[in-house]
């Protein structure tokens, strides 16, 4: 008996439709978020993440409506975010039906936002999302959808974020994102070793062995992927069976 490693499909949206791209650019339409959510709920996803990667202020009501539509389809936890900069914006996302929210750019600029969110909603509802890219001998945190370097060390930032109140880290490797060449195990392991909260690995998912690798070598508690699930390249049931056969604790359904 032990905590299962989670498999988390991620819906990157423009607020309304699921979109996808490579290395954060060349976006194209990949479907309706509520339809995909309903499918993953049945197929055995352990959690779902919905992000508003456009995150423009005037688009926010549309994204909140998307969260409501997605939440209505789910009997599993939902995490949502994109551009959250205030406690009120966080509250709106949770009220729309998310169980947890992600914060990224605004938290780097104002780490006390994490503290305020944790005080209001509890650490278990606050996920710190970090987009990291290898620079020399370390990883640097990038903001604004991966377009702006911060000069901040990603591992040190993860540790500080947890001290400020984050209850989970979602670490995305910008070097691996969209490449289907496997997760960034060294990055994930470095983050995982330096924090006490659960770590979700993101970027680079491909065949089942890449998940096995990130759970074993990357010491991830959860792994997130988008297009391999959206495009039906990888089935959730088949992936979990492979992991269970290789001794990884997973929740198998049906």
């Amino acid at each position: 008996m032990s905590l299962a490693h989670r498999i988390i499909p991620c819906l990157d949206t423009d607020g309304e439709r699921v979109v996808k791209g490579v290395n954060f650019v060349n976006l194209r339409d990949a479907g309706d978020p509520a339809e995909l959510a309903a499918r993953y709920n049945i197929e055995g996803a352990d959690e779902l993440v919905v992000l508003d990667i456009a995150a423009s202020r005037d688009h926010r009501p549309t994204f909140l409506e998307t969260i409501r539509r997605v939440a209505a389809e789910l009997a599993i936890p939902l995490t949502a975010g994109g551009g959250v900069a205030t406690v009120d914006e966080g509250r709106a996302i949770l009220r729309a039906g998310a169980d947890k929210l992600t914060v990224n750019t605004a938290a780097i600029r104002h780490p006390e936002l994490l503290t305020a969110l944790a005080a209001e909603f509890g650490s278990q509802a606050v996920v710190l999302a970090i987009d990291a890219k290898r620079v020399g001998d370390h990883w640097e945190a990038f903001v604004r959808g991966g377009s702006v370097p911060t000069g901040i060390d990603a591992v040190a930032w993860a540790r500080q974020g947890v001290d400020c109140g984050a209850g989970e880290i979602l670490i995305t490797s910008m070097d691996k994102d969209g490449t289907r060449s496997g997760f960034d195990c060294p990055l994930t392991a470095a983050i995982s070793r330096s924090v006490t909260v659960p770590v979700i690995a993101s970027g680079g998912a491909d065949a089942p062995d890449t998940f096995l690798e990130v759970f074993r070598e990357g010491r991830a508690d959860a792994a997130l992927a988008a297009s391999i699930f959206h495009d039906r390249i990888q089935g959730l049931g088949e992936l979990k069976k492979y992991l269970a056969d290789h001794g990884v604790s997973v929740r198998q359904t049906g």
Partner: protein
Amino acid sequence: MNIALVEYGAGNLPSVERALTRLGVESRRASTPEALSACDALILPGVGHFGALMRSLNERGLIEPLRKAVSSGVPLLGICLGLQAMFATSDEAPGDSGLALFPQKVSALPPTDRLPHMGWNQLRRVRPSKLLENVAGDSYFYFAHSYAALDAGEAGVAMCDHSASFVAVLERENVFATQFHPEKSGPVGARVLSNFVQFAGGKG
């Protein structure tokens, strides 16, 4: 069958409502002492902070009506923080009293494993359970918490192990509670909710 969700600002109330709707069970929200005393079964959802929950119940004048409903035999199901609220006190808010349906306290989980305890875990059944009837023994349930009741005497019917052994399912006469979120635990969670509704006299 008049089943009410205690409304005091809990974030997971709509999810519990939706989970009941999927079972074909109609529920309503009760946010006043009057509404609370006029129902056949109660659900106390909860997520967030022990002190905030108790203060919120207190401001709405719901603490005594809740205790009264329980002592008059109305079935009550507490979920997550709703379980913790049934205890006398919690490490999370040392100055605040809980509903004290159970004399023990809620403790901070020791930092042996990663915290919060976040994700899907299995249960260790220690006594017969009505909530877990027809639920496979190896089922996984969704947890998200850093505090837990380590002991509830005879009322602890299923335990979970993460950092420490803690109470995952609580049952005593008409009082039921789960530290996990049945409304987020897929088909097995739906079964748990349905078992509660059936116990309360509905058709779950």
